[in-house]
């Protein structure tokens, strides 16, 4: 054990809360588990600025994968390339491949809107639609997909809210505006909204950074539960959070070229206890970042 400090304790706590998850960490390198997403030689630019340089990694299905690293290391940019949200930035460009069930989402005939339905996203700040009620917020994606039947929408809204652990808190307030909820509830509403369209993968871009510790823990619990049905990728600048919730962790760092590089990608437990790369060790032991 080269690593000391609080991290192992945190991990024990995570294991206690989720006994099932313990010992089941996927091995991203060995392909023991089906890859839900395969990223091959991916580079991303903003105009001329290279933000992510040549990243390759497999994301195991039905697991939580964390992307950690200091600010500006390209982790948010990387996650936004997975469902083609990156291209909304001005002059954004991507090279390389992102394979979803063997199909490159950047292939010419691929409709990015269809990709985003299969790879949902939860953002840093909760962003419920301010003009819509709680139920309508969850139903928004269904309507985009052409679901018309009121009964079906009602069922799916209920299911999604239950999966997002919000149903009991809002079941009597479904008609109230979504923005009337607290920050943590709003973020769970956004998770319910993402779940409702039946995605395979849910990307979470620092989903707890605007929340208090109690709300954060609730979301983390939720993530573990959701991993049974979905594949979850979470960007976080909080190492403890990565240790608590994820099965595999990817550590990214800005190189001397100013672009983000993938330094190390291993099962979370191994990465935090036996980092192979000197830079990973420096980061997780708090020597920088």
């Amino acid at each position, binding site marked *: 054990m080269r690593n000391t400090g609080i991290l192992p304790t945190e991990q024990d706590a995570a294991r206690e809360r989720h006994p099932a998850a313990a010992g089941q960490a996927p091995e991203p390198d060995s392909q023991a588990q089906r890859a839900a997403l395969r990223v091959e030689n991916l580079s991303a630019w903003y105009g001329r600025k290279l933000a992510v340089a040549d990243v390759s990694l497999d994301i195991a299905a039905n697991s939580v994968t964390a992307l950690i690293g200091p600010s500006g290391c390209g982790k948010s940019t990387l996650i936004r390339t997975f469902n083609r949200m990156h291209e909304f930035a001005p002059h954004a460009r991507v090279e390389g491949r992102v394979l979803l069930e063997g199909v490159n989402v950047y292939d010419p005939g691929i409709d990015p809107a269809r990709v*985003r339905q299969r790879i949902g996203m939860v953002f840093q700040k909760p962003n419920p639609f301010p003009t819509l009620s709680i139920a309508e917020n969850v139903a928004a994606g269904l309507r985009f997909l052409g679901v018309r039947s009121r009964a079906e929408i009602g069922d799916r809204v209920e299911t999604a809210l239950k999966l997002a652990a919000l149903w009991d808190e809002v079941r009597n307030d479904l008609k109230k505006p979504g923005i009337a909820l607290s920050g943590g509830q709003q973020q769970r509403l956004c998770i319910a909204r993402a779940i409702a369209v039946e995605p395979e993968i849910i990307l979470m871009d620092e989903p707890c950074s605007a929340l208090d510790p109690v709300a954060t823990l609730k979301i983390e619990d939720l993530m573990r539960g959701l991993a049974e049905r979905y594949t979850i990728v979470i960007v976080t600048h909080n190492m403890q959070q990565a240790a608590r919730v994820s099965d595999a962790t990817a550590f990214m760092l800005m190189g001397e070229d100013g672009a983000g590089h993938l330094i190390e990608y291993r099962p979370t437990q191994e990465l935090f206890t036996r980092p192979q790369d000197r830079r990973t060790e420096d980061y997780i032991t708090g020597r920088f970042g």
Partner: protein
Amino acid sequence: MTGSLFERSETLYRRRRAANRLMTGVMVLAVVVALVPLFFILFYLVTKGIGGLTLDLLTQDPNRPGRPGGGVRNAIAGSAIMVGLATAIGTPIAIGCGVFLAEYGQNRLGTVIRFLVDVMAGIPSITVGLFVYGLVVLPQKGFTAFAGALALAIILIPIVARITEEMVLLVPRSLREAAYALGAPRWRTVLRVVLPTATPGIVTGVILALSRIAGEAAPLLFTSLGNQFFSTDVFQAMDALPLRIFVYAVGPYDYWHEQAWAMSLLLVGAILVVSLIVRALFGTRVTVRQ
């Protein structure tokens, strides 16, 4: 130099406090000066107009000139019809234009169109009237309410278009991203998320433009012309409140002057009422929790 920094700076701060008081006073004065004409106009309108505001004014058509009595029912109906028609024609075009500018106008083409819209907003209303006269009235060989509404719509469009653009640009990017991340294509995102969020602001713009065109006489002079008689046929000449106010105000009879004042009061009151109703219907301000 003697004394602490605090003591030495005391005169300086005394001067600054005085300057602060002076500037605050100047600004309060500016607000008062700006509001005085408004109150004078309202006060004057009410005192002069309330006497003529009778039931007859609303329900009767004008008498033969020189015979006291009668009302301006034709002008009230005409204004309502033409302003309503102009809003119905102009608003969808203006909103489409504003959304285009906001969504696809962040480039050279957008800059050119935005400039043209601004130029259009600056065209004197009488020129708009002349334009419609040449375009519609002459070929049709007749003054019509439709031509009048068209002229009013041309005045309304640039106002509503620019306000729509501003309001659409104010919709936070995070809401668009939320819709995109659910697999919504861009047009649906604009229609279902961006526009509803911008609606209260757009409604304010429509009310602003509506108030402006309701008071316009110049563009109607050679388009709808005015009409002594009650008419709801949009392909006939039609009366309007501003036109009749003008005719009565410069006319020779005292009862005309009184009716002109009453009509002015009516116009201001009607715009106020319409604004309140429209705001109550669509204008619920959305407060986004931070």
